[in-house]
């Protein structure tokens, strides 16, 4: 019987949740790195017991932790994220130019084939890579050449939070940056271009259809259809059928098209999930009801999934890295909330149960299925 391992990053440490493939009975381990912010903790597809964690805090900065035994023991690896050459400047809140300054690592994306190869998305936004298991990191500076001087941090910071490695083309990578947009490389990260055509930010940008500056919250794809992308933007749920060349809105009948995460079902490439929240100023679910929304048609037509989720007086949020999908035959979904709950559904979202109620605010959720 397979084991399911859920890796949870929170404001005050990491937790590992374990179950069998029934996903009903759970063991909770942690906190790991207690007191530290764990923006992301994730396993490695080619070696499931290799786990990387981004550990940071206001007092003592950024660390990267690595485990080679499934989270039993950890070692610190390299934590020097030095921008390539002279870092340059980007636009600041007051319209002046401001030097690029490293703040933290938001996202770690291991290669599907090499456990030592990992991409890191950081704040202030840039993409880094290691090919030695995290000992050393180097920037892919071509990304910031794409009008980086015009990027301006939003309220959540100018973070590179999403990294998608194309499953059919090792030279293609998509990234998303808050308040900058989506970007794509087709040459392994040397050169990049914005892929934001069709995005409209009517309230956030003076030019609603600008080439850069859109606040993309998350992007997802299904491995069987690598050119079809789904995006949760600041406002609007979007879809691209041509690898980001253009986007069209698929918000349809959602009660709100504002949210942070988006995910694709493991076995149904046209089934997608979002967790709407009320608005940019009200980061909690509409009507106090925590509802995951599922579209089986790739967008536009959405259904609320509520069974087992609180349907009154619920005012939590689900952050962009805190929704995950497992690969079991009966597809499992997992999400964590800013209220410290982690929920699981073992039937594609039809029914939910809490795994834990009272963790610190959840920043990220990832899941591994182990043989």
């Amino acid at each position, binding site marked *: 019987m397979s084991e399911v391992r859920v890796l949870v990053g929170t404001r005050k440490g990491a937790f590992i949740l374990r179950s069998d493939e029934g996903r009903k009975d759970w063991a909770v381990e942690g906190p790991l790195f207690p*007191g*530290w912010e764990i923006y992301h903790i994730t396993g490695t597809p080619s070696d499931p017991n290799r786990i990387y964690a981004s550990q940071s*805090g*206001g*007092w*003592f*900065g*950024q*660390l990267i932790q690595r485990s080679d035994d499934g989270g039993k023991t950890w070692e*610190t690896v390299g*934590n*020097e*994220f*030095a921008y390539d050459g002279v870092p340059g400047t980007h636009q600041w809140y007051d319209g002046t130019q401001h030097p690029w*300054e*490293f703040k933290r690592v938001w996202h770690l994306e291991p290669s599907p084939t090499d456990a030592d190869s990992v991409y890191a998305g950081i704040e202030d936004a840039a993409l880094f890579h290691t090919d030695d298991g995290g000992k050393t990191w180097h920037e892919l500076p071509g990304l910031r050449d794409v009008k980086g001087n015009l990027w301006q941090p939003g309220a959540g910071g100018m973070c590179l939070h999403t990294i998608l490695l194309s499953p059919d083309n090792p030279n293609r990578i998509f990234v998303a940056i808050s308040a900058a947009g989506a970007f794509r490389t087709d040459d392994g990260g040397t050169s990049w271009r914005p892929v934001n055509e069709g995005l409209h930010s009517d309230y956030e940008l003076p030019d609603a259809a600008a080439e850069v500056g859109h606040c993309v919250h998350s992007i997802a794809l299904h491995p069987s259809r690598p050119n079809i992308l789904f995006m949760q933007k600041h406002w609007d749920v979007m879809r691209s059928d041509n690898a980001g060349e253009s986007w069209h809105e698929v918000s349809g009948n959602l009660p709100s098209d504002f949210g942070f995460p988006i995910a694709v079902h493991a076995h149904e490439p046209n089934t997608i999930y979002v967790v709407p929240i009320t608005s940019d100023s009200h980061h909690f679910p509409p009507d106090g009801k925590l509802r995951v929304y599922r579209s089986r048609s790739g967008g536009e037509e959405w259904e609320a999934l509520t069974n087992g989720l609180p349907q009154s007086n619920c005012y939590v949020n689900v952050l962009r890295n805190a929704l995950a999908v497992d690969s079991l035959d009966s597809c499992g979904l997992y999400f964590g909330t800013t209220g410290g709950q982690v929920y699981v559904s073992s039937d594609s979202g039809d029914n939910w149960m809490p795994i834990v109620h009272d963790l610190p605010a959840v920043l990220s959720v990832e899941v591994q299925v182990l043989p």
Partner: protein
Amino acid sequence: MIRVTLPTHLRTLANVTGPIELQIEEPVTQRAILDALESAYPMLRGTIRDMATKERRPFVRFFACGEDLSHESIDAAVPAEVVTGAEPFRVIGAMAGG
């Protein structure tokens, strides 16, 4: 022998439970202490001083002999009691409540 005390998070990170003892040739300065500390415990690199600027992180303080040395020059000599080991060089996580 210089004695350095660390806050809880950094003791955990360095896998130590008490003061760290460092042999440092005179003149003993904050920079010499931090260089020796990071050399002996490389996992502390970037946690006390910013990795890029090498400046003390904003919410880290250095105390010794009842004094806050945080704003002293990093190349100034530390108090004689620290050099002799009579008093520890204390790395502190600044108060940040609320």
